[in-house]
């Protein structure tokens, strides 16, 4: 996965800029969905057992399976599935914009 191409903004001004094949030209990664969020999930590192259930059930996916898992706040929409599904209550919800 090349990071550079992933967040490329594509400008189409005339017919020549259109793709030759019926294929998309860029990734939706340019669309940062952080502004949708009203609650902010925060991982408590001491409680986290690295089971990666939060990563498994993230619909974005905005959680990277690292040690400890990292939430990408550029894309997290704040659905709260990770908070609900964490078996160790290691993810807490904080009010956004405090």
């Amino acid at each position, binding site marked *: 996965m090349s990071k550079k191409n992933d967040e490329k903004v594509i400008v189409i001004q005339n017919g020549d800029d259109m793709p030759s094949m019926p294929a998309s030209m860029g*990734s939706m*990664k340019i669309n940062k*969905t952080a502004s949708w969020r009203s609650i902010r999930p925060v991982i408590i590192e001491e409680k986290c057992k690295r089971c990666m259930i939060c990563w498994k059930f993230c619909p974005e996916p905005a959680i990277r399976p690292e040690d400890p898992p990292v939430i990408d706040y550029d894309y997290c929409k704040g*659905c709260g*599935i990770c908070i609900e599904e964490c078996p160790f209550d290691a993810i807490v919800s904080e009010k956004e914009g405090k």
Partner: protein
Amino acid sequence: MSNKTKGQKIKLTLPIEEVMSPGHLACQGCGATLALRYTLKALGRKTIMSIPACCWSVIDGPFPYSAAGVPIYHCAFETAASTASGISHALAQLGQDNVTALAWAGDGGTFDIGLQALSGAAERGDNVIYIVYDNEAYMNTGIQRSSATPHGAWTTTTPVKHYKRGPKKNIMAIMAAHHVPYCATANIAYPEDFIRKVKKAKNIMGTKFIHLYAPCPTGWKHPPDITIQVARLATLTNVFPLYEIDNDVYTINKKIQKAKPVSEYLKLQGRFRHLSEKEVQFIQRTVDQNWKRLLKLEEAFRNEKN
């Protein structure tokens, strides 16, 4: 995506590669995005999808961007299966046997509008995987009833006083009647089971059908954080049992020893809030009957094979 491990080794139960990218336009807690995320984890990048009008035609994002990470053919509402058939024949002509043709449709595009195309593809035995992500109404256009809407549910075209009466269409029985090599039900709350089924389907020639259960917080009127809980309860209450039909042999993948009462599943969702005690009991009886029928089917077909 890097997988750095400092101390202990992190064990992942799913493939690590993320084909689907974040930044898509799905609602918070959407079950359909999880559905495609798992599907593409199982199939990998060598996949060509055909998508009719459904939630995913919006979630994918506006041209020239795409969130799926694989080529997508947006086709007409009726033609998900026939478009995928065409793709699969083109791939065969080009000799690209390692590329999978995937038809990805919602319940409206499968149970109602796309049924004849699906039936045609299944009858011809075209080499496609057809996955229906079932959110039990036309969610993309504003929660209208479909033939996948269960008995008792509220939708905008079956408002509270006139809630849907009549059962959900049994699409699995329809597909089993086509004698396709493989069909299965799956649930987003059990991703390991789902990924196993998709991988199995990938290695089978012919039409493969997977009925995938994907809750929709917007249309089912439940908070987005309990999407997985609702999906899991659907299987734990036997509302949506997990089974597969492999060459006409039924196998139940998850046998619940003591099923929970359906009221636990119904009370989480606002679309069932109006139901009386009598209606809940009726739904419970239907669920029990369907479950007994499934157990008998498993038994009957197993004996026939042996």
